[in-house]
C-alpha cells in the first residue's frame, strides 16, 4: 500500500502539470475580456493601455511559464517563510527567508496577491460549506441505511420523496424560500452573512450559529439527498447477498449483520461519492454563497470568471484540481481498506 501511495503521488506531478496547462489553454481560448466590467464611458484606447498594463500583451507561453514559476516557486517559498516565522506549529524553527521579492500571482481585479484572498476566504467557506457537507453526510448515512433495511416502508417512502424533491429543487429556490420565511416573515436569522464577525464570546458564537443556520441547512439537505440515495441503493444490493443469509444463519445479531457486514460492503460507491464531494466543499457552493452573501471561495471564483480575472481563475481552478486529484487518491486507498481484495499492482 505504501509503495502504491508513493508511486501514485509521484505520478500526480505530471498529471497536475498537464491539468494546469489544459486549464490555462482553456481560459486563453474562452471568450472574455478583463475590461468587460469597466464602464462604457472609458474609451477603447484607454482600455487597450489597461490591458497592456495587465501583461496581456505578452505571448501565451511566456504567461504560462510565468504563472508556473509564481505558483510553484514564489508562493511556496512565501508559505515556508510564514511557517517558520509566524506559525504556531513551526515557529520555533530557524527563519527561512526564501522569498526574494519576486512578483506573486496577482489578481487583475484587485491588483493584489491571489493567495492572500484565498486564505481570507477559507474560514467562511469551511464553516458554511464544510458544515453543510458534514451534516449532509451525517444525515444521509443513517437515512440511507434504514431506508434500505426497511425498503418500501413509510420511512423509506417519505425519505425517497423528500430527497428527490430536495435534489430536484435547486438551491437558488430553497435558499430564497428560507430567507423569505425565516428572515423576512419571522425575523429569526439574518439574510446576509457577516464575514467580519469574530467569534470571541458566547453572544458572537450564537450570532455565528444564527447566520450559518440557513445556508448550512440548504446545503446539508441538498448533499444528504444525493448521498442517501447512493447509500440506500448500495445497501439494497448487499442485503440480498448470500453472505448475509449465511451470517444470519450463523446466529449473528441483526445489528452486527447490517451495520458491520452489509454496511462495510456497501461503502465503496458511497466513499466514492463522498470523496468526490470534498473538493467541491473547498470549491464553495456558488449559488448558496451568492444567495446568502457568504462570499467564500465559490463567490470568489464566479466573480473572477465574470470579470475575466485569468490569474485568479487559473489559480483557484488549479487548487481545486489539486484537491480533486488528492481525494481521488484517498478514495482509492480507502477502497483497499474497505475491501482488502482490491489490489492495484
Amino acid at each position, binding site marked *: 500500500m505504501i509503495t502504491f501511495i508513493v508511486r501514485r503521488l509521484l*505520478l500526480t506531478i505530471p498529471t497536475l502539470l498537464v491539468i494546469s496547462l489544459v486549464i490555462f489553454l482553456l481560459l486563453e481560448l474562452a471568450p472574455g475580456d478583463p475590461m468587460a466590467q469597466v464602464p462604457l464611458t472609458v474609451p477603447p484606447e484607454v482600455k487597450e493601455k489597461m490591458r497592456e498594463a495587465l501583461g496581456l500583451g505578452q505571448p501565451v507561453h511566456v504567461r504560462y511559464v510565468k504563472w508556473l514559476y509564481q505558483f510553484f516557486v514564489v508562493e511556496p517559498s512565501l508559505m515556508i517563510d510564514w511557517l517558520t516565522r509566524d506559525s504556531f506549529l513551526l515557529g520555533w524553527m530557524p527563519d527561512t527567508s526564501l522569498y526574494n521579492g519576486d512578483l506573486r500571482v496577482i489578481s487583475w481585479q484587485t491588483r493584489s496577491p491571489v493567495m492572500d484572498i484565498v486564505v481570507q476566504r477559507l474560514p467562511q467557506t469551511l464553516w458554511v460549506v464544510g458544515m453543510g457537507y458534514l451534516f449532509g453526510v451525517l444525515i444521509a448515512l443513517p437515512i440511507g441505511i434504514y431506508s434500505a433495511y426497511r425498503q418500501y416502508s413509510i420511512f423509506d417512502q417519505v425519505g425517497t420523496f423528500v430527497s*428527490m424533491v430536495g435534489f430536484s429543487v435547486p438551491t437558488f429556490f430553497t435558499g430564497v424560500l428560507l430567507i423569505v420565511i425565516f428572515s423576512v416573515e419571522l425575523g429569526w436569522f439574518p439574510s446576509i452573512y457577516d464575514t467580519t464577525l469574530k467569534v470571541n464570546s458566547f453572544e458572537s458564537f450564537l450570532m455565528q450559529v444564527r447566520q450559518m443556520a440557513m445556508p448550512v441547512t440548504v446545503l446539508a439537505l441538498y448533499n444528504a439527498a444525493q448521498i442517501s440515495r447512493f447509500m440506500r*441503493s448500495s445497501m439494497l444490493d448487499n442485503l*440480498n447477498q448470500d453472505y448475509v443469509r449465511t451470517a444470519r444463519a450463523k446466529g449473528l445479531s441483526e445489528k452486527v449483520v447490517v451495520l458491520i457486514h452489509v454496511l462495510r460492503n456497501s461503502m465503496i460507491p458511497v466513499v466514492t461519492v463522498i470523496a468526490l464531494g470534498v473538493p467541491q466543499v473547498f470549491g464553495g457552493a456558488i449559488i448558496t454563497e451568492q444567495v446568502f452573501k457568504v462570499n467564500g471561495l465559490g463567490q470568489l471564483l464566479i466573480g473572477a470568471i465574470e470579470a475575466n480575472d485569468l490569474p485568479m481563475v487559473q489559480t483557484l481552478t*488549479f487548487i481545486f484540481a489539486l484537491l480533486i486529484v488528492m481525494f481521488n487518491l484517498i478514495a482509492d486507498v480507502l477502497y483497499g481498506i474497505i475491501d482488502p481484495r482490491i489490489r492495484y499492482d
Partner: protein
Amino acid sequence: MTDASSAPRNQWLDVWLQFKSHKGALVGGIVFALIVLTVFVGPWIWTIDPTHVEIRARNKPPSLSYPFGTDQLGRDMLARMMAGGRVSISVGLTAMALAITLGSSVGLLAGYFKRLDWPLMRLTEVFQSLPLLPLLLVMVTLFREPLAGAFGPEKGTFILIVGAIGVTSWMATARIVRGSVLALKEREFVLAARSIGTSDHKMILRHILPNVVSPIMVSATLGIAAAIITESALSFLGLGFPPDFPTWGRLLYDAVDYMQQYPSRVMWPGIAISLTVLSVNYLGDGLRDALDPRIRGR
C-alpha cells in the same frame, strides 16, 4: 409467481412480470407517461403560443381562460409549462443518457482492465478539474455556428446543449462505477466465471454490468434533475435556447423574484421538475428490482 415450473421461460418476460408487480414502478411509469403525453401532445389541444405577449393580461391568477395564470408579460403559463417541458424532458433525458453511457463505459473499462485504469482515471481527473463556465463558453464559441449550419438553429442548439451537459457531467458516474467494478472483480462469482474461460466482453456485459446497475440508476435519476437545472444555467449565459423560449429551469429561476407576490408561478415548474424526477426514480427502482435475479421470482 404463478406457474413458474413449466417450460424454460423468457428472461425478459420475467423481468416484465416483476416490473409490473412493483407498485412504485407502475405508478412512476404512469405519472411519467402522463407528463410526457401532456407536454408533447398538450400543445395540440391547448394551442396558445407560449411566446405570445398579451399586455392586458399581465400577472393573472389561475382562471378558466388561463388555467395556470399568466406571467409578467401576460404570457400563458400553461402553454409555457408545456413548451418548457418538451425541452426540459428531452434535454434532461438525452443529456443524462449521454453522461451515463460515457461515465459507465469509462468506469467499466477502467475498473476492469488494469492497463486502462491509470490513463482513464487521469482523463477523468482532467475533466473534473476543468472550470465549467469557461469550458461551456469555449464549446459554444467553437461549435455553435458549425452545428447550426449542419443541423439548423434549433436542432443545432439542442445538440450543443445536450453535448455540453453530457460531456461535463459523466465523471462522477465513471468514478462510482469504477469503484464498484474494482470490488466486484475480486468476488467469487467473477473468479468462477473467469475460470471457465468467459471472455472479457461477456464478462463485462453479463456479470459485471448487471451488478453495477443500481449506482448507475441512482446517478441517472439524479442526473436528470441536474441536467434540467444546468440547461437553465446555460440559457443565462446565452449558451442555450433563445431567451423567449421557456424551459422549466428558466421558468423557475424567473419566478423566484416573484415568489412572494405570485407563489403559483414558482410552484408549477418546481412541481413539474420534482414530479418528473420522482417518477423516473420509482421507474428506476422498479427496473433495478426487476433486473436483480435474487429479488426476481421471490
